[in-house]
């Protein structure tokens, strides 16, 4: 068992962190809220990293964690974590264009119930970034994959302004791209779930770091509020949740990469642990910031939005606990 990053993984992390610190400040998130095309230049910088989507999951998680840290409003998750592996699973030759950064895409699967499992509905829900990618891969009940260019898509307004989700009408002409087996689809979704959990850990750590900095800085009763035990204990619990979620995510990634017997349980553990960490970091982060944390002017709410948006995508904490129960009991 070894939880330390390789030199290559550290390079991915450091490169991504530096790039995102320059190119994805909170002001970009605000600009993207008003006009989603504001994030296009950022996406052009990041498309080089798309091949991570079909490589070792640990490497992908390293990058996703950094995206979560800045709540990057780009279709990387849609393209690298959903679309590219679906194309790979069906042996679609257009994959090369995606890996080269020349094409982007997303996956439409969930029906009205919002759950990512095969169904016969043609109106798909919660499709990430459908309006800002080139192609939508619609997956039918039997696993048939159809690639759709600019299908009718309607933005679903959510609290998360950093990730755009859409209802997509898939009963329109498209190109057939073969069939994905149930096992292959489950494997894609398992990887995507862990990758999303890694993103959530990045967001949770950002919220924690912002709140620690504020607690050291903010003076009340003539002392930093971070010297009060009531505040310290909240931060200790937030940090415990973040640390265990980080560990659960990389354990799950290693288990999938190694095809370990524990991987199915580990996926649910990772997403649920990340959900608990992100929700607590967001809620207690705002509480410790007090009134200023509750203003639009402060940046904190951008990450609160991202945290609760990701919590609801690909299964909530409670949903993953229930699936885990099905494996245990």
């Amino acid at each position, binding site marked *: 068992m070894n939880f*330390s990053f390789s030199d290559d993984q550290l390079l991915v992390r450091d490169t991504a962190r530096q790039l995102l610190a320059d190119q994805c400040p909170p002001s970009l998130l605000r600009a993207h809220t008003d006009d989603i095309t504001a994030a296009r230049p950022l996406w052009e910088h990041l498309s080089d990293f798309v091949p991570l989507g079909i490589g070792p999951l640990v490497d992908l998680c390293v990058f996703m964690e950094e995206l979560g840290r800045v709540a990057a409003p780009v279709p990387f998750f849609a393209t690298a974590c959903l679309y590219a592996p679906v194309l790979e699973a069906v042996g679609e030759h257009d994959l090369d264009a995606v890996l080269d950064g020349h094409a982007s895409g997303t996956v439409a699967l969930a029906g009205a119930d919002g759950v990512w499992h095969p169904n016969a509905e043609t109106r798909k829900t919660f499709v990430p970034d459908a309006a800002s990618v080139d192609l939508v891969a619609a997956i039918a009940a039997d696993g048939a994959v159809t690639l759709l260019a600019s299908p009718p898509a309607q933005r679903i307004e959510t609290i998360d302004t950093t990730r755009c989700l859409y209802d997509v009408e898939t009963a329109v002409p498209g190109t057939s791209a073969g069939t994905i087996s149930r096992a292959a689809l489950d494997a894609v979704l398992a990887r995507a779930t862990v990758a999303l959990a890694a993103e959530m850990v990045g967001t949770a750590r950002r919220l924690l770091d912002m709140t*620690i900095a504020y607690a050291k800085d903010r003076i009340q009763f003539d002392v930093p509020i971070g010297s009060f*035990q009531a505040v*310290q204990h909240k931060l*200790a619990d937030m940090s415990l949740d973040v640390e265990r979620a980080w*560990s659960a995510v990389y354990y799950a990634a*290693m288990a999938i990469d190694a095809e370990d017997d524990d991987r199915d349980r580990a996926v649910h553990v990772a997403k649920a*642990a990340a959900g608990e960490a992100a929700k607590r970091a967001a809620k207690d982060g705002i509480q410790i910031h007090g009134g200023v944390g509750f203003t639009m002017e402060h940046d904190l709410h951008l990450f609160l939005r991202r945290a609760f948006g990701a919590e609801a995508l690909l299964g909530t904490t409670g949903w993953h606990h229930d699936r885990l129960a099905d494996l245990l009991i």
Partner: protein
Amino acid sequence: MHLDWGPEVESFRVELIAFLDEYAPPQTRPRRDFAMSVHDAEIIPQWARDWQATLFDHGWMIPGYPPELGGRNASPVQTMVYLEEMSARGIPRALHFPGYAIVAPSLLDFGTEEQKALVPAAIRGDAIWCIGMSEPNAGSDLAGLQTRAVLDGDRFIVNGQKVWTSYATVAEKCCLYVRTDPTAPKHKGISMLIVDMDTPGIDIRPLTHINGNADFAEVFFTDVEVPAANLVGALNDGWRITQGSLAHERAGLWVEGVARLEQTITGLVDLAHRRGVANDPIVRRRIAEGYQRAASLRALGYKGFTSFAQGSSAPEHSYMKLASSEQGKALYELGMEIQGAYGPVVDEERGEEAGRWALSFFVSFANTIAGGTSEIQRNIIAQRVLGLPRSG
């Protein structure tokens, strides 16, 4: 990043398993998914003494130590595998920890040659030790201890009181923390003495836990004479010794706590089936939550162990202590809740597993208090890991 430990460790594991299969006594075989010593009438029964000696003689008591100290010079990773296998089977090394876990490393680091000669017996369990630390007015604020020792020629005269002293009623010797300079700042006036428990002037009064066991005690010292040669380390330098422990095992001891959580969850699944609530969605979700928290904690433990094995100091110890003790308490409480009206029943015939859930719930309070309360762990995390300022 990878999951396996590497091939050189697997032969070590095979050797350990062969030893356990041959030598582990029947009392260690039943799955002990509950807090220890609920059923044993004696505090340290004979089978446990024999088992500890067998482990020592075969080099399996503290694998990281050399053979003369009950080990086999195992590497940190091998030690981790040892702790994994023992805890997965629920096999205890010993039913009393002070001698091998605290006294031995303290004497090896700070003792004279004469004092170091006491170490093998402490590890083998031939001599049972207690640790005189906590006092009525020195619990979490341990450095505020007031038991006084005055040097008088070639002996110390000790007066004062210790409390919550585990194994005091059966111990031969005590590592006693005393105040030797009342004028110095509180961390700087403390010394450590080795005290024979049969010295005149020592009065031991058993304290009964809320679960009915009496394996700790109050210990009163009235004009107790201790040879000056029994001072461990330098005079007034005893606080440093409180910081010592099994350094090479510290990074792995969490495995035992996590394994107990996992065994408790297995017990909860069985219990839910027996009580007919295995299909109750609330019960199912809460058991799964417990599993998630134990599994994510295990991953965090391994992450900390990775840093440790590579030579960096890892802050994970406080996270592990805080989370595993609190989670354990929550799981036993869930076990009671699953039984509805029968949760608190402890009578042998009508109670589920002779009331073990309720009694284990009671025992579990010790884990969130002893060895630094959960609140102290949160202080440590906030101040030493997150860098927040000390409270005023």
